[in-house]
């Protein structure tokens, strides 16, 4: 028998629950859990949830952004960054998380999905180092 991937289960759950609400939604979710149990995939529930999140994000145009800076940035700057990213990825809405990492020295690093924009001083210094020790 072919192996069932967490992604496949997630897709099935998404189409089963789509447009439902109230008790109908509750029933569909309960059945989904039952299927996971029957297929012995409860252990993989984390992967299934992640896959489901990804599907929902894609269908509803949600973009998740992670911004890392050396020092805390202000609210207006956060909004500005969010708007810019929203425009770049043509997203309906944006879910953002902000972190601080002093070892970045300065600048900002933005992660969206598997795309990264690294404009931190640390990265620039690394590039300078590479440039200076290159073989000519």
């Amino acid at each position: 028998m072919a192996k069932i991937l967490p992604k496949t289960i997630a897709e099935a759950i998404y189409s089963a629950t789509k447009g439902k609400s109230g008790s109908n939604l509750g029933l569909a979710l309960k059945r989904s859990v039952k299927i996971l149990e029957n297929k012995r995939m409860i252990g993989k529930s984390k992967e299934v949830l992640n896959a489901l999140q990804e599907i929902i994000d894609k269908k509803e145009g949600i973009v998740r952004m992670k911004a890392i800076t050396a020092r805390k940035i202000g609210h207006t700057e956060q909004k500005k960054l969010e708007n810019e990213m929203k425009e770049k990825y043509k997203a309906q809405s944006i879910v953002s998380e902000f972190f601080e990492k002093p070892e970045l020295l300065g600048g900002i690093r933005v992660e969206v999905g598997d795309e990264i924009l690294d404009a931190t001083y640390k990265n620039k210094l690394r590039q300078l180092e590479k440039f200076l020790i290159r073989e000519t």
Partner: protein
Amino acid sequence: MSNNIVENLRKEIEAFKIDTQTEKVGHVMEVFDGIAKVSGLSDVKSSEMVSFPNGETGVVLNLEEDAVGVIILGSFEKIKEGDEVKATGKILEIPVSDSILGRTVNAIGVPIDGKGVIKSTKSYPIEKVAPGVVTRLGVDQPVATGIKAIDAIIPIGRGQRELIIGDRQTGKTAIAIDAILNQKGQNMICVYVSIGQKDSKLRKLEARLEEGGAMDYTVIVSAGASEAAAMSYIAPYSGVAIAEYFMDQGKDVLIIYDDLSKHAVAYREISLLLRRPPGREAYPGDVFYLHSRLLERACRRNAKYGGGSITALPIIETQAGDISAYIPTNVISITDGQIFLESDLFYKGIRPAVNVGSSVSRVGSSAQIKAMKKVAGTLKLDLAQFRELEAFAQFGSDLDDSTKKQLERGKRAVEVLKQLQYAPMKVEHQVVALYALTKGSMDDVPVNKIKEFEAGLLDYTERHAKVFYKEITESKMWTDKGEEALKKAITEFKSSFVK
């Protein structure tokens, strides 16, 4: 002095421009035996290079639905789960330049001979589509290997792919090395690709080539037995990329893959680790394509497309003479002929241990000079008949005269085709020796004295039949005048030898 350093550094820093762009990254999910499974990297291409945080390079081999399989070129011990992997957007390529000649490099073009860095301005992709039909030209120029048995019976042409196949310890590498040594002054660049060989063997070979002055026109690409399977897998492609660099300059290149059995084994290892389904002998389904796409890159290009050629001599090691195993049959069918070496012949003292019956060159005599064609024309048939008669003659002693004559001639032919290692012979000498043999001049020389006779004859004729040698060198064929001079010299030498 210190002022200079400050000034130079300032200039360097001024020349540095930072280019901040979005990059595609992935994260390592698992690492094992030189393979990494990486999530993310959504736009990555097959065969694209990726870089790991510790500076190691990887190559994408498997594109799956939600992960990619990467082979790691180098050590994988320091790569851990969660590491960030960056896509480079470049298909795997190696640096090439003219100064690579005489050097030994590893599978990714990094010198390993301790002679310093190789300056290069160009890079060549290691995977390339083979030249198409319109760019090609028929094979009609010989590659002189300097080995009588090969040049006379199984001639190799420029742009041909000739397989060297045989059990272990039958002299496969020896033929390849002799062929390289004989390319001195023949306007040929040689690339020797060593796959999964012992480093001691490589060192010995390198020393031998240096001694013979062959390193001036040779590049060695090595993926040693202690290196990862990924290096063995890409080494032949790197070798042919270097060969293509020289071919693009209109030069003729001879490339030797030593050996493709180990290459197939390395690929099998990688494929199984990447969980590709195993097929016959546990090799993956595309093992034929693995070798066919490599060997198709050997070609002779016509002048309109820049000329030049790549002649490939792949080597395959068989187990107990079984040429019907999977990899040998595959490579036999891809190449334009094979040189089959046999351990029985080797132990009988017939060296090079070429089995003339099973060896063929499908390009054949069009890659021979006229003179050689003339003397070697019937040699292959004679030898085949001799082998048959030899077996038959063991049963009965009553043989007619013509059979006896054929047997005696065959014995002498076998003797003439024997040749020491590292002693390649000039084509003119080969023609003279075979002329003397086929015209019956050696028939009354005792078999155990044939070698001595041959050596003396070559020396004598070189001094006394200069006309003949001049004709062969200049026009690749003799005239009646030359032949007359040679005949006379042979008769003279023979009368003094028999005394």
